[in-house]
């Protein structure tokens, strides 16, 4: 067992993990963060996407020990303490960007990162940026519309989630784990 310290949705936890334990399993099985879900075993579907030091990663492609000292943001930390939906959540709601909702946690977290990296994406850039996240229900149109609308909102209200979610600059400084980026070549 290895002792690690990990901050998940603003709460720091010290836990002992097996070296083989995946971040996805740590979140779900040990830390009760069942909002993050698992959809495949080859890191293709993206359902388990979270932010690690501000950058989206597939938590099934990160070992828990790699997240030692990291800040992890999950879907459960997106909404405000008063229950106000995060703009990306609101956009998915308004544009029917979800049906069964299973891919939604990953889609939301990837979208936050996508818009942070590219604040005014074209539709094509949104589609390319989401290609590591599979949805079987929506045909993606509602999702793409939601991300475009969210990007617009984020532009209009620049001070917002970036501060809450660990800025992208911080993330790059701390170094995202290699091989864990969300975008997958298909």
């Amino acid at each position, binding site marked *: 067992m290895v002792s690690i310290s990990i901050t998940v949705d603003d709460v720091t936890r010290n836990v002992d993990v097996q070296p083989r334990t995946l971040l996805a399993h740590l979140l779900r099985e040990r830390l009760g963060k069942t909002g993050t879900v698992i959809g495949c075993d080859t890191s293709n579907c993206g359902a388990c996407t979270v932010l690690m030091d501000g950058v989206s990663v597939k938590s099934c492609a990160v070992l828990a020990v790699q997240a030692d000292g990291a800040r992890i943001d999950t879907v459960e930390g997106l909404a405000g303490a008063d229950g106000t939906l995060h703009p990306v959540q609101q956009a998915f*709601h308004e544009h029917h960007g*979800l*049906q069964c909702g299973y891919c939604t946690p990953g889609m939301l977290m990837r979208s936050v990162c996508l818009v942070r990296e590219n604040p005014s994406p074209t539709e094509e850039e949104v589609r390319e940026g*989401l290609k590591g996240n*599979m949805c*079987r*229900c929506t045909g993606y149109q509602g999702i*793409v519309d939601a991300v475009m609308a969210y990007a617009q909102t984020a532009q209009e209200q620049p001070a917002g989630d970036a501060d809450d979610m660990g800025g992208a600059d911080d993330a790059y400084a701390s170094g995202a784990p290699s091989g864990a980026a969300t975008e997958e070549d298909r």
Partner: protein
Amino acid sequence: MSTTTAPTEAADGEIGRARLRKEDRRLLTGRTRWTDSLTLPGMVHLSLLRSPVAHARLTNIDTGAAKQAPGVVGVWTGADLPEQGQMPTAWTVSEDMLTPPFFPVSVGAVKHVGDIIAVVAATSKEEADDAVELIDVDYEDLPVVTDPVAALADGAPLVHPELGTNVCATWGLDSGALGTGGSAAEAIRAAEADPDQVVIRRTLRQNRITPAYIEPRSIVVDPTAEQVTLWSATQVPHIVRLLMAMTQPVAEHELRVIAPDVGGGFGGKLQFTREEALVLLIAQRLQLPCKYTESRSESMQSSHHARDQVQELTLAARRDGTITALEVKLTADMGAYLGILTAGIPLLGGFMFNGIYKIPAYNFHCTDVFTNKTMTDAYRGAGKPEATFGIERMLDELAVELDLDPVEVRRRNWIKREEFPYATVAGLTYDSADYDQATDRALELFGYDELRAEQQRRQSSGDPVRLGIGVCTFVELSGLAPSRVLGGLNYGSGGWEHASIRMLPTGKVEVVAGTTPHGQGHATAFAQIVSDELGVPFEDITLITGDTGMSHKGMDTYGSRSLVVGGMAIVGAARKVVEKAKPIAAHILEADVADIDYHRGKFSVRGTQSSVTISEIALGTWLAHDLPDGLEPNLDSDNTFDPENFSFASGPHLAAVEVDTQPGQVTLRDYVCVQDVGVLVNPLIVNGQVHGGLAQGIGQALYEDIHYTEDGQLTTGTFADYLVPAAPDVPRFRTDTTVTESTTNTLGVKAVGETGTTAAPPAIVNAVLDALRPLGVRDITMPCTPVNVWTAIQQAAQQGQE
């Protein structure tokens, strides 16, 4: 986009409003309860040893080392579980249908890759997985057959030697015998002798695909109470409960089944699974809560697949394009076992091969065949996409043969608006449609004439990237189903649906529905319906479903039945509430019941200003201080609805593809469809259903393929090999609706969920062929991957040289 004909419902009602979904909030915030998220005290985790080979006798299974492994609580093989019952099939399609032995854990032999050999229970999933690796199995390889046509040959390896054949069942339908038309065989013979007719024969292949819901199946069983509770990621909790009780050692009244949040199904979770049965068996053995969650790789091997048909089609027509006969000979791959509907899925297509066309003579014959592959069963459309593919591909072949425009050849054959209701050659009665209006709208939206002109220009200039235009005018049977029709097909259940309405004292409403959602937006759409019926605000209505303890009666969710059948059950329940409230209203208003008018939650005395609301009556009924003599203090209602007929959604789909002939890459440039799904309860949800179905249909046409090697190895067993479309793989869809109200239900609704998977594959394959016909390409294997396109071009070039 806007509707081209105005919905008939007044704008002040909830029906027709694009309400944002009630169910979104918890899904967006991660406050979800998926089955795999459940943890119970003392729970043990199960892992399964699955067969790595397609057909073998199990001569020895050594579980000794696994039993000694850390954390292991128990290991069982099929021989260790004498109490396990045979897995049921619910559709015996013919009297001579053969049903092979099929147990949760294999006994003596395995029949496909992924068949279950042993179960390990351990205190953690990791320990269970580790112990599975320690089980040592001796396999005596047996001959394998994976191709359904080869399986019919004399001397072919037998999947189940004890049955003596690979033929599961045969089933046919002939319009001459049925009295719905002439004899197709005679009509085709006459056509062959008639210089004014053409006879076209083609053999088409429907590729094997899989539903690929994103939430893997998961099961938790808690045996520690009077009732055993089983949570499952299923579409069909009521059916699971019944079939479990009928086949495994648990009684119906001792089992409660809950489908909590379910992450997609598409037919893939319309099943009673071996895994559900074995988790129950092990939980009973251990008297401990047990959980099993499949990995994606296990899901690809063992969750049922779909389609996989060889279609031999014969179409006869006069030279003006009028169809005179259609003959369909299907060979349908069952895989190794029969799931609950496996053998009957192709039959559903038997009723739809005639499409929207007036065909005077029709014959359908299907042979269901066993192979050493995973069983097939329902997937979004279930038999109907296969049929639509067959007829819509043939219409294009006819257009080519007669040098007619593919839209024009369809127009010359389809049923006209004034001919509805229309009794088809397959024995169904279509409710309503206006194919001319919908198609004209689609052609305009698509810019059909401009695209044809561009195609001509580019072909003349020798552009290596070819533009193809594909058409499909589909219809689909939806709303399973009138029980008497199912009875006629020897289907193992009725087709009714149940709903209850509970009027709470504060005026809020609980709707208890027998159909359960897994993404379709039941809570929103049903609240809209009930709001209009009872005049209760949308926000004050909640849905209870998916738990046999709380929603005791239901037929569950499949076959586009939730709105068409389930919605009607709710309407009936709401009207019963109103009828129960009327005498109480009369009593309060001191009037005669006959003088009470009701409109949207308000009871009034005719010709007066005096009125009372349903909320006031609900509180008064709960108080029960002053009710009319002899009335029970209860407004709640139960209603079971059995439809008289199906409803039939329809519409044209148009695809424009760019085919780069060098690498064979197909790019879907534009996709337009105009649906007639009857009255729209919620246009937002309708659009979402259309979009999602389209992406799946595009998947079958361009990307998705379940592929087995000749020795039965599954080579597309993960999401890295089985290509579910991602966001860049689908275009922006352009959709519209026309509305002809269904005449088979009072809501006027038709179904929408299965339209995309039904219509998109033929539209796209027709488009790819349209692009490649100038190169001599006459057919192409689905999916139209670069290798399949390239191969088709090369073969055409070779044949051109010969």
